[in-house]
C-alpha cells in the first residue's frame, strides 16, 4: 500500500481501461438481474414470453447465470484489477493495447454467448453453458488478460507482496487451468460419473478460485484505503490465503453428494469443505477487526457499508456451508431452493456487494466527478440489502418445505403447490433488487454524463471532488 503514493497516477493506471470494464459491468448487472427476475415470473405463472423460442424460460435462466458470472462479476473484477494491480505493484500492465483488445474481444464473446444461448446452442455443463464453439476463444482471451496482469506482479517481485497481490496472483494462475479443465474434459473426454466429478470441480473452483480470491483481494485493498488504517493483521490474512489455496480445490464433490460418484471422493469433498472455515474466519475476523477501529466511518460511507454487509453475508454463507455440506442435511436440502438461496447469497450478497463498493469508490475517481446522487446510492444499498436477505430467508425456508415433502413421499406436484407462495416472495425480493440496480445504473449514467460535460474544465484539482 505504501509504495503507491509517489508515482503520477496518470501514467501508472490506465484509467480508460478500468473505466470501460466497470461501466460495462454496470450495464450487465442490470441485465443479469432483469433476466433473473423474468425467469422467476415463470414460477408464479406470469411469464410474459410464453412459447417464444428465443425467450423460453430455460434459456433466460442460463443467460441470467452466465451474465452474473462472466459479464458482470468478471468485468467488474477486470476493471478493478486494472486499477489495483498497478497501484499495488507500482508497475504498469504489460500493454494497454492488449488490454483494449481483451476488453473488446471479451465483451464481444459475452454478446455472442447470449445470442447463441437464446438461439438454442448452450453447452450442457453447469456454469459453463457458454456455447462450445466459443470456449477456446474465451480461454485465449483469459490467458491474454492474465499475461497482462501477471507482468507487473512479476516485475515487483523484489518486495514482499501485499496480501491482495497474493490472492490475485493465485487467481490468475488458477483461472485458465480451471476454465480449460471444466469446459473441455467433461464435454469431450469423460462421460457420466467421471465427467461429473470434474464438472463439480469446475462449478466449485469458478467460485472458489476465481471469484473468491479476487473478491477478497478487493476487500483487503479497499478497506484500509478508505479507513486510512492498516489491516488488523497481515499475517492472519496470509494464513487465510494459504488455507484457501489448500482446502478450496478439494471441496468440489460436495456439489454431487449421494450421487453415483465414488463415495470416497464425496467424503474428501466434505472434509475439505469444513477446512475452508480456517479461511473464512480469518478473513471475517480481520475485516471486522479493522472496521471496529472506526465504526463511524464504516456506517457513514457507502462503499464501506457495502463492504460491511458483504462480509456479514460471507460469514452467514460460510456457516451455512458447514451445515449444508453434511450428509444428513444434504438428504433434505439437496435439489431444493435452499441451494438457490445459498448461491444468490454468495454471488450477490458477498461478491456483487464488494464490487458495488469498489465501483462507488473508483468511478468518481476515474471520471473525476462525484456520484450524481447520494440518496440513490443509499437507496441502492438498502434495496439490495433488504432484497437479498429477504430472498435468502425465503429460499431457505422453501428448500426445507420442498425437501421434507419429497422425503415424505407426498405427490410431486404438492411440493410445487407448496412452493408457490415462496416463489411470490422470491419475485418480490427480486423486484427490490431490480429497482436498486435500476437506480444504480441511472446514477452511474448521470455521473458519466456529468463527467463528459465537465471535460472543458481543466482537470487537476479533481481529487477533492472524488470523496465518495
Amino acid at each position: 500500500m505504501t509504495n503507491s503514493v509517489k508515482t503520477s497516477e496518470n501514467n501508472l493506471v490506465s484509467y480508460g481501461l478500468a473505466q470501460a470494464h466497470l461501466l460495462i459491468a454496470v450495464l450487465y448487472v442490470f441485465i443479469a438481474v432483469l433476466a433473473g427476475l423474468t425467469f422467476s415470473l415463470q414460477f408464479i405463472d406470469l411469464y410474459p414470453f410464453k412459447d417464444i423460442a428465443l425467450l423460453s424460460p430455460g434459456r433466460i435462466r442460463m443467460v441470467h447465470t452466465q451474465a452474473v458470472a462472466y459479464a458482470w462479476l468478471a468485468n467488474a473484477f477486470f476493471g478493478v484489477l486494472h486499477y489495483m494491480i498497478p497501484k499495488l505493484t507500482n508497475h504498469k500492465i504489460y500493454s494497454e493495447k492488449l488490454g483494449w483488445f481483451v476488453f473488446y474481444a471479451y465483451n464481444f464473446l459475452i454478446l455472442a454467448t447470449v445470442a447463441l444461448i437464446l438461439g438454442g446452442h448452450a453447452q450442457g455443463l453447469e456454469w459453463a453453458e457458454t456455447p462450445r464453439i466459443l470456449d477456446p476463444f474465451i480461454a485465449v482471451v483469459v490467458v491474454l488478460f492474465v499475461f497482462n496482469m501477471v507482468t507487473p506482479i512479476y516485475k515487483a517481485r523484489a518486495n514482499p507482496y501485499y496480501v491482495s497481490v497474493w490472492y490475485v496472483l493465485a487467481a490468475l494462475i488458477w483461472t485458465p487451468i480451471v476454465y480449460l479443465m471444466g469446459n473441455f474434459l467433461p464435454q469431450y473426454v469423460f462421460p457420466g460419473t467421471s465427467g461429473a466429478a470434474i464438472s463439480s470441480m469446475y462449478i466449485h473452483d469458478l467460485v472458489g478460485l476465481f471469484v473468491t480470491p479476487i473478491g477478497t483481494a478487493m476487500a483487503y485493498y479497499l478497506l484500509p484505503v478508505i479507513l486510512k488504517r492498516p489491516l488488523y493483521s497481515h499475517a492472519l490474512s496470509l494464513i487465510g490465503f494459504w488455507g484457501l489455496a489448500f482446502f478450496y480445490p478439494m471441496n468440489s464433490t460436495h456439489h454431487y453428494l449421494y450421487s453415483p460418484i465414488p463415495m470416497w471422493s464425496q467424503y474428501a469433498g466434505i472434509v475439505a469443505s469444513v477446512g475452508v472455515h480456517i479461511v473464512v474466519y480469518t478473513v471475517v475476523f480481520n475485516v471486522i477487526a479493522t472496521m471496529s477501529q472506526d465504526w463511524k466511518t464504516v456506517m457513514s460511507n457507502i462503499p464501506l457499508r457495502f463492504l460491511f454487509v458483504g462480509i456479514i453475508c460471507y460469514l452467514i454463507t460460510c456457516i451455512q456451508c458447514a451445515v449444508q455440506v453434511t450428509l444428513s442435511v444434504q438428504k433434505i436440502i439437496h435439489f431444493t431452493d435452499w441451494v438457490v438461496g445459498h448461491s444468490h447469497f454468495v454471488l450477490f450478497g458477498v461478491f456483487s456487494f464488494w464490487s458495488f463498493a469498489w465501483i462507488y469508490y473508483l468511478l468518481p475517481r476515474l471520471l473525476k466527478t462525484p456520484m450524481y446522487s447520494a440518496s440513490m446510492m443509499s437507496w441502492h444499498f438498502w434495496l439490495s440489502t433488504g432484497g437479498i436477505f429477504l430472498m435468502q430467508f425465503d429460499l431457505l425456508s422453501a428448500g426445507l418445505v420442498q425437501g421434507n415433502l419429497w422425503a415424505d413421499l407426498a405427490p410431486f406436484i404438492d411440493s410445487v403447490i407448496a412452493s408457490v407462495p415462496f416463489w411470490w416472495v422470491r419475485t418480490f425480493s427480486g423486484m427490490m433488487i431490480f429497482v436498486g440496480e435500476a437506480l444504480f445504473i441511472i446514477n452511474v449514467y448521470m455521473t458519466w454524463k456529468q463527467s463528459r460535460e465537465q471535460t472543458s474544465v481543466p482537470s487537476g484539482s479533481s481529487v477533492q471532488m472524488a470523496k465518495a
Partner: protein
Amino acid sequence: MASKNFEKFSSVFLLAGLTSLIIAFLILGLAPATMVNGMAPDEGLPAKIPSDFQKYYSSVDQYRSALKHGRDVYVSEACWHCHSQYVRPVSNESLRYGPVSQPGEYHNVLNLPQLFGTRRVGPDLSRESGKRPNDWQFAHLYNPKSVEPRSVMPSYGYYFEVRKKDGSPLKGEDFNSPEVEIVPKQEAIDLVAYLQWLGNQVSERSNSTFDPSAIVMPPTE
C-alpha cells in the same frame, strides 16, 4: 514479524498452492475416471427401436442419432436445470423414482457430458422411460397444464405444428374445431424419444463394457 517469516517462503508457497489444485484434480477429478473402462462411440446405445417409435424411425442408426438430437434439445432448453438425472439412496427416492442410480448407467455417449443436474423444480427424470405414454409426453410438452393444471413447467408450443387435418392452412378462429390437429415437429419427437430412453439402460445394458463391481457405492439407508 510473523508475516515476514512467512513471506520468506513465498515462492515455495505459491508452487504449493498450484500443486494443491493439481493434486485435487488428480484425486477428485481423474481418479474416478480410472475406475471405468474406455468407451466405444456407440457405447450404451440401444440395439433396437422401441415399438412405440417404429413409426417415427426407420433404422436403428436413425433412432440413435435422434436420441442424440433429443438430448441436444434437452440441453438447449435447460430442462436439466429443472430436472435432475440421478436417484439418491436417501430421502425415500428409490420408492418415488425407482432403483438407486449406479455409475455404470452413465457410461454411454448420451452422458457426454452428463446431465446430473443440481435442482429439482420438477421430478427426477432418470427413470422416466415407460412411466408415461408418448401421447402424454407430447401433450405435456405442448402445454404442461393440460395434464397437470398446477404445473410451473414452461410450455414448448414452438416444437409443435397446429394445422388442419386436411393439410389446408389454419385460419385464426377454427383453432378448437375437430378439424384441427397439433402434431409434434422433429424436435419434439426426438426429445420424447430421449425421455423414453432415460432409465432404459438399467434393464437393457446391451453392449456396455462396464463392470459395476469396480465401484464403491454410497451406503444405502
